[in-house]
């Protein structure tokens, strides 16, 4: 049934000059699943992520969201379809307050943005939702601070809040834990997991670090040199010899095995 596929790519490819960063990748993400994409640095994870989130145009291939071709959809329209995304580098409005950051994220998908004669606080639903989201990510006490004044870890939480605010059905997350101290990582991952389970959302997580994703993920795709190297449940992936040699295991591991699986 095609409805159960939330996100799909067909022969997706991105070239920078002579360098093929993403090499004809076919990816299928089941609706309601927690799907992680991992791989070593330079494997093309981030490029793939940027293609999925429509910040880069692919060289060739298609992207489908719930069966709809979004390959050439303008960036600002994807949010209205219910796609939320976060980036490796914290990307907030630094001089606006924490509340305003989240409020703007809510306002984007609700009517009323063009009421230039009215006070913004009159959009009650937006304001209430923003407060609720701040509560959820644990930033309610810091709502009035400018975003730039938050410590790194809280900025990541704010980033997450801004994605959750419009209540998207698909979350694209690029290394959400980057720059967080060790003890904060499980906390944030738990939060993401809870949101996903409770809301029946689909999560696509791009991660550098295998340990972070092992517990939360349903499916893991391993990228290597721009292509999909392997896919499966965490246990399958851990046991996969190709993954072992390309990513985890010995440097001088059997390259032949890698070629076969790819």
């Amino acid at each position, binding site marked *: 049934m095609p409805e159960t596929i939330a996100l799909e790519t067909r022969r997706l490819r991105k070239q920078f000059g002579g360098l093929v960063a993403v090499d004809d990748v076919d990816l299928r993400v089941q609706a309601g699943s927690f799907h992680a994409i991992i791989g070593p640095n330079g494997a093309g994870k981030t490029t793939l992520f940027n293609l999925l989130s429509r910040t880069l145009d692919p060289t060739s291939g298609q992207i489908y969201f719930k069966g709809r071709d979004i390959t050439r959809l*303008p960036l600002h329209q994807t949010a209205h379809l219910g796609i939320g995304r976060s980036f490796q580098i914290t990307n907030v409005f630094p001089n606006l307050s924490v509340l305003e950051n989240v409020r703007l994220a809510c306002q984007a998908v609700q009517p009323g943005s063009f009421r*230039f004669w009215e006070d913004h606080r009159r959009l009650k639903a937006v304001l209430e939702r923003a407060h609720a989201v701040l509560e959820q990510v644990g930033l309610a006490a810091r709502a009035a601070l400018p975003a730039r004044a938050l410590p790194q870890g809280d900025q990541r939480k704010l980033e997450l809040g801004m994605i959750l605010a*419009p209540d998207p059905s698909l979350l694209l997350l690029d290394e959400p834990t980057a720059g967080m101290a060790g003890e904060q990582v499980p906390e944030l991952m738990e939060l993401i997991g809870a949101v996903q389970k409770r809301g029946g959302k689909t999560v696509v997580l791009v991660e550098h670090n295998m340990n972070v994703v092992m517990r939360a993920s349903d499916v893991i795709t391993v990228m290597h040199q721009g292509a999909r190297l392997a896919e499966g449940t965490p246990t399958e992936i851990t046991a996969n010899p190709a993954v072992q040699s390309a990513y985890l295991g010995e440097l001088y591991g059997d390259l032949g095995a890698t070629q076969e699986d790819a």
Partner: protein
Amino acid sequence: MTPATPSTRPALPGWLSRNLGPLGGLLALIAFPFVVAAQSGDSPVAVLTNESGNAKFYQGLFIEVFILAIYALSYDLVLGVTGLLSFGHALFFGMGAYATGILIKSFGWELGPTIVAVIGIGVTQALAVGVVLPRVKGVTFALVTLGMASVFHIVVQTHELSPWTGGDVGLQGLVPPAILNPNADRLRFYLVSLAVMVLAWLAYKRFVDSPTGRVCNAIRENEGRALMLGYNTFVFKLIALTIASVTAALAGSLHALYQPIVSPNVASLSFTVAALLMILMGGVGTLTGALFGALAYRLLAFFLDRWFGQIADVLLGVVYIALVLFVPYGIVGTWRRRRGRGA
């Protein structure tokens, strides 16, 4: 000392005590002509009967301040609030001034329809400039707007159009309509331009706090992120540009009615620089700063000219450089920062 508690203070309605500053300022400006008259030994009645004297002169100076303030306010919406670097803002003002002058003088229009036409022109020119918005960003946008304004500046000066525009001398001989004649009734013109300025300021304050204005702020902070959140940033930039253009065109209208000559300089690069200078003095993005900036700019120019004559322009430039280097937040911006830190 015990801190004053709200209960011990005279019971002012909440909104009144919150807006004491602006209201006081407004009252002071209304009283200003009479105070000047009293100061210089004239009877305050002279102000009402439009007798010339110090009061009439200073009203004139302040009418110029109000017009500049409206103009600076509109530039602050573009640069300070939305973050669009435009070097062609004078086009909006100049177009309004010339349109008013030509419609009234050459076509004999009444004031009402002229104002409506100016608003229409304001919207149209914003859309024309806005076409390039989705394609060019940053410095390139600044260059494109600079180019457009410069073309207007050159075109109004050409010989072919001089029957209407007055060529490089400027448009003169406009007889202001009786209802708003700065020579026949200076006080009325003074109050009308003051009212327009105050209304514009109030409207802008509201706009910045509206859902739309908040998005404009977000675009200034991080346009890419606003786009990702799902805002079609082009539309919002266009809205800000249109509001600013209409406001600036109306300021131009007042300018044409007040000044004996509309000089082509109102469309020049240096007039855009004047807007920049005013909001820089007042504080970029603060709106209120535009008003203070206009006041400081006009008075500074006036007194430098009175004291130094020929080299006044050089000195104004030096003041400008000093501001860029030493007071980057402007009057209102710096004041707010101080207060923010104190609180």
